């Protein structure tokens, strides 16, 4: 990650610098996903009908549910920062626990969502898909790639949260030194931010 505690405590600690580093990293992520959105825009522009039909294949309920819980998890992370700032370790841990739990639920949902599609024979390169039109292939190609890469980010987020929780438990993160938590929070909000766009683009088009 962007910072290293050892170095900062010995030589010079620069929370602002660490945060700037995190923001820069977020910018790279924004552009990475940005390009996927660009591809999406191009293909949707060229295959409007197929994308609409594709969108109808996806389950709005699961999508909405995932959106709601992801938003909640963003709020709990933000609140955990408040808790740490106020020196309330227990509350912070609890809030992070909720976040972690939601992250896992999100992935479980994804698993079932993907599982159902794959069972149905809808996955990149599958015969059922190849028989459909080009637009549909592209829609599902993008759907798998974009939600897949997003899911990988959730996994990384889970790893980070586990690390942060341990740091809080061992008092490495506390009310005057919580940049790791803040940066992890920023990262998690980014994951949320991307989902905010993925959701309408894939689930809500008609």
């Amino acid at each position, binding site marked *: 990650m962007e910072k290293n505690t050892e170095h900062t405590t010995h030589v*010079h*600690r*620069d*929370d*602002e*610098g660490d*945060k*700037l580093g995190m*923001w820069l990293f977020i*910018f790279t992520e*924004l*552009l990475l996903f*940005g390009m996927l*959105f*660009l591809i999406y*825009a*191009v293909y949707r*522009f*060229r295959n409007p009908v197929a994308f609409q039909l594709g969108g109808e294949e996806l389950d*709005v309920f699961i999508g*909405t549910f995932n*959106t*709601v819980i992801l*938003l*909640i998890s*963003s*709020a709990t*992370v*933000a*609140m955990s*920062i*408040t808790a740490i*700032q*106020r020196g309330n370790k227990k509350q912070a841990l609890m809030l992070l626990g909720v976040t972690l739990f939601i992250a896992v639920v999100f992935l479980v949902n994804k698993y079932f969502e993907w599982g159902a599609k794959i069972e149905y024979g809808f996955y990149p390169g599958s015969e059922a898909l190849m028989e459909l039109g080009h637009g549909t292939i592209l829609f599902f190609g993008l759907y798998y790639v974009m939600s897949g890469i997003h899911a990988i980010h959730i996994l990384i987020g889970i790893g980070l949260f586990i690390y942060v929780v341990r740091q809080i438990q061992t008092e490495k993160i506390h009310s*005057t*030194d919580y940049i790791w938590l803040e940066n992890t*929070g*920023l990262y998690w*909000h980014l994951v*949320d*931010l991307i989902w*905010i*766009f993925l*959701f*309408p*683009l894939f689930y*809500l*088009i*008609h």
Partner: protein
Amino acid sequence: MSEEKHHISSYTSHFLVLGALLLLTAVSVAVTSLEMGKYDTLVAMLIAGTKAAIVLTWFMHLRFDNKIYAIFTVAVIVLFLLVLYITFFDYSYR
């Protein structure tokens, strides 16, 4: 440097923000059943954009942090939109 003052957001404010986000989600889902033709996507993107802005300003603290982050963020988004715009110079006129 690390002694700078930090803004501490209250739980209430977080709840309010979350409420707004959930509300917008609900609106976004609800509007899809209205048939608005080509404005569909526009509306959906406007709502998503608002949500994103809310997350950036409050959850990601852009409002309270050093201004430079907000400036950079806006610049990056503008850069992306320009790239998107220029790409469509090709696709819109092919």
